[in-house]
């Protein structure tokens, strides 16, 4: 069982990545450029889900690669694929970038007893998109990773966990957070429908 788990995780890392990482670790700095070119475009799209401006996304991706180079010795292919590891760094870099810019706006919503059980039946994708835009970036990203990418909560927990807590604790936190986000969206959409 354990072997199968390790094998499945390890297979996510392409042979090419594995060879490049070995070369970088043995001191061939130029090889890192290959990683930048192969993972950069996907990372830009990933970061683009959190930050809105092209320039900001470029800064975040650049910082991500520099941080990845500095911590390459810490990368463990048995825990996650290289792209997931890079996404983990990019996620925290993007949030740090937003905090520096103070763009994060938390909604002062009253989460009282009158939270509707379901999303309003008349809700359209456009309305939901508009409501999602009002959420903090962390919550938007959680929805993207869970609902759009369809990733398991354990993988999302690996990306979002920064405090060094156990993955199970982070999974539990994310599960509660998803529940709160849905509540928040119901309130926003109900208000939008009322207006």
């Amino acid at each position, binding site marked *: 069982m354990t072997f199968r788990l390790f094998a499945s995780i390890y297979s996510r890392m392409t042979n090419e990545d594995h060879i490049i990482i070995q070369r970088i670790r043995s001191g061939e*700095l*130029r090889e*890192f*450029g290959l990683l*930048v*070119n192969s993972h*950069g*475009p996907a*990372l*830009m*799209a*990933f*970061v*683009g*889900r959190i930050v809105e401006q*092209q320039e900001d*996304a*470029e800064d975040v*991706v*650049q910082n991500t*690669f*520099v941080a990845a*180079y*500095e911590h390459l010795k810490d990368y463990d292919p048995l825990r996650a694929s290289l792209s997931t590891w890079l996404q983990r760094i990019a996620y925290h870099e993007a949030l740090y970038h937003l905090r520096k810019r103070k763009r994060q706006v938390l909604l002062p919503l009253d989460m009282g007893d009158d939270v509707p059980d*379901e*999303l309003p039946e008349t*809700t359209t*994708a*456009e309305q*939901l*998109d508009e409501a*999602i*835009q009002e959420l903090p970036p962390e919550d*938007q990203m959680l*929805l*993207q990773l869970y*609902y*759009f990418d369809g990733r398991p909560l354990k993988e999302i927990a690996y990306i979002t966990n920064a405090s060094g807590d156990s993955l199970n604790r982070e999974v539990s936190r994310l599960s509660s957070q998803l529940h709160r986000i*849905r509540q928040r969206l119901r309130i926003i959409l109900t208000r939008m429908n009322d207006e």
Partner: protein
Amino acid sequence: MNNDKALFRPALQRQNERAAKMKMPDDMEQRVMERIKPKRRHAWLYPAITAVAASILLLLTFHTQDPESSGLQPQNASQAAETPAWQYEDERTIRNAYFAHQKEIQEKGERLAAYIQQQITVNIE
């Protein structure tokens, strides 16, 4: 929950389309490599500084441990070859005697000063 999923996907698709428009600039590799290279240079800098510091320390240590570095050694190597070892011993003895004599004078002076001070105090009283 499943209904939510069906609704969330098209809504999030729009956000993804916006994100997909962000293209990686052509010079990203160059930018990253430029930021990485100085770090590599720094990695060599510290061992180099340590090696230089260690060399200086070793030189100083050997210099101070040199038996002929007491200030009595001859000015140059040729003089050292000509000067017999017993002469060094002689010079050291003379110098030690000179320092001992100086110390004795200083102590006598201090004792005399203390005596005068005492006499002055007695006379005033």
